């Protein structure tokens, strides 16, 4: 075999090895890319579930507080209306009862009641649970 032919052969062999190496690396890259895409999809899905859960707890908590404070506001209004009327009439019994009810109501903090959030989270995992707001 002539030197030139040998050189050409060597060059062809080198290029073939290179092509083989590139082909191998491309395959490896595609495998990695697919694996990583799968991982990302799993992360996104798990994340979306967790976010939805937190969001559901938050919106239920907000709805609970809004409803609770609004209901209490109306009750306080009625109780203080009774307080004013009782004071105008020096009606000690009504005054004592209405003040006592107002103090009792004030003592119960809706925030302390929010401990029900613990059961709320459990309820979130229960597909049959019905939320009544």
């Amino acid at each position, binding site marked *: 075999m*002539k*030197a*030139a032919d*040998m*050189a050409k052969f*060597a*060059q062809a*062999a*080198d290029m073939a*090895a*290179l092509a083989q*190496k*590139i082909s191998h*690396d*491309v395959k*490896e*890259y595609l495998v*990695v*890319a697919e694996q*990583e*895409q799968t*991982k*990302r999809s799993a*992360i*996104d899905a*798990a*994340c979306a579930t*967790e*976010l939805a*859960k*937190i*969001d559901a*707890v*938050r919106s239920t*908590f*907000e709805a609970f*507080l809004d409803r609770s*404070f609004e209901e*209490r*506001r109306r009750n*306080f209004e009625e109780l*203080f209306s009774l*307080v*004013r009327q009782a*004071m105008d009439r*020096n009606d*000690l019994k009504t005054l004592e009862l209405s*003040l006592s009810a*107002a*103090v009792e109501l*004030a*003592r119960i*903090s*809706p*925030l*302390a009641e*929010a*401990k029900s959030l*613990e059961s709320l*989270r459990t309820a979130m995992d229960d597909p049959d649970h019905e939320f009544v707001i």
Partner: protein
Amino acid sequence: MGEAQDKVKRAQERYERRKKRLDSRVDFVNTEAKLYGMRQKDIKETVFVRVARLIEEIGKRAKVDVYEVLDGVDINIPTVGPCEKHKVEAVSVFNGLLVAAGASVLASTATTGGVTMLATASTGAAISGLSGAAANSALLAALGGGSLAAGGGGMALGSLVLGGVTFAPILAVGGLAVAAEGEKALTKATKIECDANKLIAEMELRESVLDGVFQRLNELSGILNELKDRALASLSSLEKMVSMDRFDGKNVEHMERLRCLLLIISSLAQIMKTPILGEDGAINPKIDVVIKQVAV
């Protein structure tokens, strides 16, 4: 790599913005709590003191120990603890970027290394057995199809190959390694983005709790104001009677009016002792537990 970096950067920025908003909300609610404490102090210093003076004025005819009512009235200025600084771990991604940069270099070395192992120098010696300038020349010549003397393109052609046809695949292989590391970095960035989103959602939940604290402060302030107004109206009327010496301890109506005032004062004292948040004066710890649970 850029996509991963951008993702982390955007997540970090969103987290920082939300954290700033939550911190400012904490400050706002703390200020409101302090104002509520000052309102309590004002009631104690004005209304209660005036009632005590009134009782002193009425003297023994009243037969009421107002200090018993005043006893145990505490003034609490609750504070909402600062929210913890959460860290978004971006370090791992940047480590990944460094690894990828290293892989690019390694890929390039591996390609030429492959040639080194396969090719034989024109002298007949395996290139891998040569070193230094001799190895480089033989390597370039091998890439060029062998030395000129052997009928190949020699070093010049080898250099051209490196600079042209061969150089591009070397870059491509290096680029693939970078791309593979980029994919891994993007996955890490996705995890960081997810963690940041969960922290943001947790902060939103915390803000809802703070809004609840604010509503509770408003509620108790409203009750205190209502009772204070009732107490002041009653107090002014009784003070006027006493100052004009028209208060009679044996008069049923006069004593009922005094008892009305004391009932109001007693209720004021009880409201002032009512915890704003939980029993221990802090945010109900169970809320914090729940926040942590849902954020895991």
